């Protein structure tokens, strides 16, 4: 099986390096960061932390070098999905492409360029330490299912899930993958931007009653939009939010959006709160709080370009 990871940042690297451990899998990586690509080709792709792994991965910044692949795993930041998949689509002319990205709307962007699409949600996380070397922070499950308008076949989704699981990335193939995706979306949309706007860690947001009430207001809007689409969440985001706020879990965690804001990088808010607003609009569900939070974070981004 030939698999290409599109966007080989932290999460992409977790998939690429682990999958490269399998005898029956050949892993390619497409990424625009030249130094990272060169380091991977020279020394392999190394993970440390939750697992110590070095994988042999063929990396390139030139999409034309990619051979035909049976699977793509897209792991770019959400705003780069369209460009990355447009550039690499020729490699997946006869393949299926999965998104393991944050937010909502990535599968739609992939489906503009690819015939068979897999809806995915993944929880493992890490960060890039240096070119070719990724810190694996937390292990976690991945869920894959068909993207309904342009679905991959059930058998191929199971094949990819099996490969990931054998590689040490526990992955489940399901008939409806929207539940875990919306659970993660609602969690992120209700918490990440509040960290980004205030500068507070996850735990400190949650211990302030007024901000915690705002989190619930955002969660409730997200749940209403999910319910209008008949999506059954696989867990209650409220419980996960409280769990994560515990000292021993993620009290001190700075949301990725806060890290983006501190580094003045464009955030994924269009695909989090913006996604909830868009789907709410399509299903007649009002989302005034998500709308406000979306615009405020866009305002933060606009303040950098003044």
């Amino acid at each position, binding site marked *: 099986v030939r698999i290409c990871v599109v966007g080989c940042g932290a999460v992409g690297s977790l998939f690429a390096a682990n999958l490269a451990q399998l005898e029956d899998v050949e892993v390619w990586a497409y990424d625009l960061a030249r130094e990272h690509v060169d380091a991977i080709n020279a020394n392999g792709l190394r993970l440390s932390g939750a697992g110590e792994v070095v994988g042999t991965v063929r990396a390139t910044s030139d999409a034309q070098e990619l051979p035909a692949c049976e699977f793509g795993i897209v792991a770019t930041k959400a705003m780069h999905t369209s460009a990355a998949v447009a550039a690499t689509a020729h490699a997946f002319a006869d393949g299926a492409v999965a998104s393991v990205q944050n937010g909502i709307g990535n599968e739609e962007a992939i489906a503009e360029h690819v015939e068979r699409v897999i809806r995915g949600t993944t929880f493992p996380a890490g960060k890039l330490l240096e070119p070719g070397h990724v810190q694996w922070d937390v292990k976690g499950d991945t869920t894959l299912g068909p993207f309904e308008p342009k679905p991959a076949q059930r058998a191929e989704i199971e094949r990819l899930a099996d490969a990931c699981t054998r590689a040490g990335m526990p992955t489940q193939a399901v008939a409806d993958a929207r539940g875990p995706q919306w659970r993660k979306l609602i969690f992120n949309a209700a918490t990440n931007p509040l960290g980004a706007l205030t500068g507070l860690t996850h735990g400190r947001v949650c211990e302030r009653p007024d*901000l915690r009430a705002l989190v619930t207001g955002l969660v409730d809007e997200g749940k209403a939009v999910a319910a209008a689409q008949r999506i059954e969440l696989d867990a209650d985001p409220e419980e996960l939010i409280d769990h994560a706020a515990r000292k021993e879990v993620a009290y001190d965690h700075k949301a990725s959006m806060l890290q983006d804001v501190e580094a003045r990088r464009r955030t994924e808010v269009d695909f989090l709160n913006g996604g909830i607003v868009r789907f709410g609009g399509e299903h007649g569900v009002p989302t005034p709080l998500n*709308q406000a*939070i979306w615009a*405020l974070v866009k305002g933060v981004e606009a303040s950098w370009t003044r």
Partner: protein
Amino acid sequence: MIERVCVVGAGVIGSLFAAHLGRVAAVSVLCRRDEHARELNAHGLRVSGKHDFVASVSAAVTPDELAVPDLVIVATKGAGLDGAASVLAGHWPEATVMTVQNGLGAEEVVRRYGDWPMLSGVTFMSGTKHSDTHVEYILDTETWIGPYKDNSFEAAQEVGELVVRSGLKAEVLADLRPAQWSKLIFNATVNGVAALTGLRHDFHFAAEDEQADLGHVVHALVDEGKAVARAAAIELHDDPWEMNVLATRRGHAHLPSMLEDVQAHRPTEVELINGALVRKAREHGVEAPLQEAVYALVRGKEASYA
């Protein structure tokens, strides 16, 4: 006849009042810092920008060292109000005291420390302090003055005339609450959004073309504020949305004080402004979820650097 004026607090607004009034009355300045008082006594107070002159003032850090004034203008920031008012307790019972703080409730804070006849002020002028003895007069907009509680309209008129003779703009109103509320809603919205996004008060605040444009949120926040005013039986002096649109078209993107405060990691005026509006909403049973959100977020931002 108002012959002696004491200005309490020599920030931007206090300095602009003290210097201008120094041209038509004997002006003293009650400062918080010794060094500030010494500098003012030695060098006077320089105004640049819209006007250009130097006024001589006498300054001290306790009322005992200052001549008894006919008029006291309390011009501290909201955060310094209680401390400044407590210093006045027991002094100058014959003097008229005027507050010019943003938001609502400054008069009540001062009232706790003495039975002076009082005036309410709302000021729209702005500037920049370049040093303890130099203030730049940037926006030569009006100060609105009205009697507080059972004080007379004539007392407000006398102060209004004095302010106009000094070269500043003033309008005297029989009931200041409509003006105070217009500015309250304007400040809660514009200052809050500026503090959270980092944007100066520029065109973004009036933009309503795209779905994620900030103008939608600003408009919705203003509408919530107007609903609170209606419930409190206040007929607004100006429409805060129109004030917002007008201000963004002036060509000078104002740096709202709340943004200045969060950038300098200082406590903001969020309690007198957003807190006051949200408490009025609760008092009158009006739902204001977006104003509640902005209030919680700005308080969270303060907590992040406290």
